[in-house]
């Protein structure tokens, strides 16, 4: 982290309320290009709401989100993906009846700017070998090569989470929003996922929402703490660990 980095994502005073409940209440956050930025906070702090606002699934009531120089207000979800902003889901969200390979080829094909267009009605997809090759390569990266022919619903939970990551990677994002990638995983699967994220960290900026504190402190370059819809602290892991406010609000002020 020695060289100066540019700001890739800036969240300015974003608020979102559902009826009288403020899920986000003036949250601000800045992500530097190339970092793994973890977002932690107690249940109901607004972490997933923030991911929804960033990905375009929800519209913020107030505030601004600037991604790579673009104001994201009013941009539809698919336009944000085209800008390089991709998300994974907290609850596994795959094409469960499609094969593992088809899941990834659909994701690769989404980069229509690379392949011409998906408004192609006559030419068989089987001739698009470049798309299939790239999908195979992605399956290699997440260690699912041997399962390419299985249906996604036949995979174990941990394998599904890895497939989820492969789908997100296929869109070639500049920024990856990972919403609890280790949710519901056993210890062995978690270790595998941590290794996978460590490998990816070299190539892509990440905003990681995660409850597993061991994983967070191992992976994150910087950590932001969201409490009550507001970011109360942002900084290096050591600083966050020592921060009195954070300890009181979240990590548990045992003594």
């Amino acid at each position, binding site marked *: 982290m020695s060289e100066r980095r540019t700001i890739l994502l800036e969240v300015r005073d974003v608020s979102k309320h559902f009826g009288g409940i403020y899920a986000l209440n003036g949250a601000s956050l800045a992500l530097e290009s190339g970092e793994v930025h973890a977002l932690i906070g107690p249940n109901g702090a607004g972490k997933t709401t923030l991911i929804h606002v960033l*990905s375009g*699934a929800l519209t913020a009531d107030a505030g601004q989100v600037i991604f790579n120089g673009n104001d994201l207000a009013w941009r*539809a*979800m*698919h336009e944000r*993906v*085209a800008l390089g902003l*991709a*998300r994974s*889901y907290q609850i596994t*969200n*795959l*094409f*469960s*009846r*499609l*094969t593992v390979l*088809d899941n990834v*080829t*659909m*994701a690769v*094909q*989404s*980069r229509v700017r690379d*392949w011409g*267009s*998906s*408004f*192609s*009605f*006559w*030419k*068989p*997809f*089987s001739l*698009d070998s470049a798309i299939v090759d790239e999908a195979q390569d992605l399956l290699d990266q997440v260690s699912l090569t041997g399962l390419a022919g299985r*249906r996604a619903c036949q995979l174990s939970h941990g394998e599904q989470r890895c497939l989820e990551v492969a*789908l997100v990677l*296929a*869109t070639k994002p500049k920024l990856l929003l990972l919403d609890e990638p280790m949710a519901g995983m056993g210890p062995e699967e978690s270790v595998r996922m941590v290794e996978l994220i460590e490998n990816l960290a070299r190539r892509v900026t990440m905003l990681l929402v995660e409850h597993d504190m061991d994983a967070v402190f191992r992976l994150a370059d910087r950590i932001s703490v969201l409490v009550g819809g507001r970011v109360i602290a942002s900084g290096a892991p050591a600083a966050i660990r020592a921060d009195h406010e954070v300890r009181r609000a979240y990590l548990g002020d045992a003594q």
Partner: protein
Amino acid sequence: MGLYASSPRRRIAAAMTLVALLALPWLMQSLDQGFYVSLASRVLIFALAATSLNLVIGFGGMISFGHAAFFGAGAYTVAILAESGVVSAALAWPLALAVAALLALLIGAISLRTRGVYFIMITLAFAQMVFYLVVSLKSWGGDDGLLLLRRSTFGSLDLKDDTTFYFVVLATLALVLLALDRLAHSRFGRVIQSIRENETRMEALGYPVFSYKLVCFVIGGALAGLAGALLVNQSGLASPNLLHWMQSGTLMVMIVIGGVGSVFGGVVGAVLLLLCEEFFVEISPHWQIGLGLLLLAVVLWAPLGIAGLFGWGRSRE
């Protein structure tokens, strides 16, 4: 139900069916049953209409309950054009297709903003609006419909001849099925099937889901219009019944029985339903009770339809 994949076996079955259908007029005439050639045309036209709905429901996952509007629009376009002296099929049929496509674009652009039951109801509502509009227009025949006094002309082909007409219908259906099979395996076909499987995921992968669904909806509507253009030539009448919601329901029953999301599902369903109607109606006017039982059996034990039973449906494993 993964993405649709053709097997060589299915292609052989399709080719054999095509040969049998080519020989049908000759067979019927040698048996002195020429009437059945016209019935066969009717069955194939409904097969085309059901196939067009299968593209929308089976492949695109859009449960449209208003497909009759496009079917009827095609029929009325040809009948109205014939009244004003345009009888050339080369002009009237593409126009019927275009009118149905335009109507599908309008209805689709609004309806596709809704999901689930709301989409079913709004497409039904639009189709019924078209139905009542046509019934109320005396110049278009109102309740009685519009007679087509002359069949369309098609270059040197004599479409008044039932056998020639049958071959034109058969060729049209075969071409549409070939195109649908290509479409199902194309990038576009994979996109719409994946939208059927998981729409939010497709949006999150960067696909402009609405545009893909609308294009699929319009293609389906246009093909229904083409079927309508053929049907008015077969029956000689553009009837408001073609626009009625029961017609939409009949087409739906056809694809459910035949096989939702299978290229040949619409054909199998239309053949089965119309032949049952033709032959069982003489045995009992309540033959539809049997149809209801068949539908029940299909839904319970063969969710991929009759085509699915024979491995003609979507790939299973």
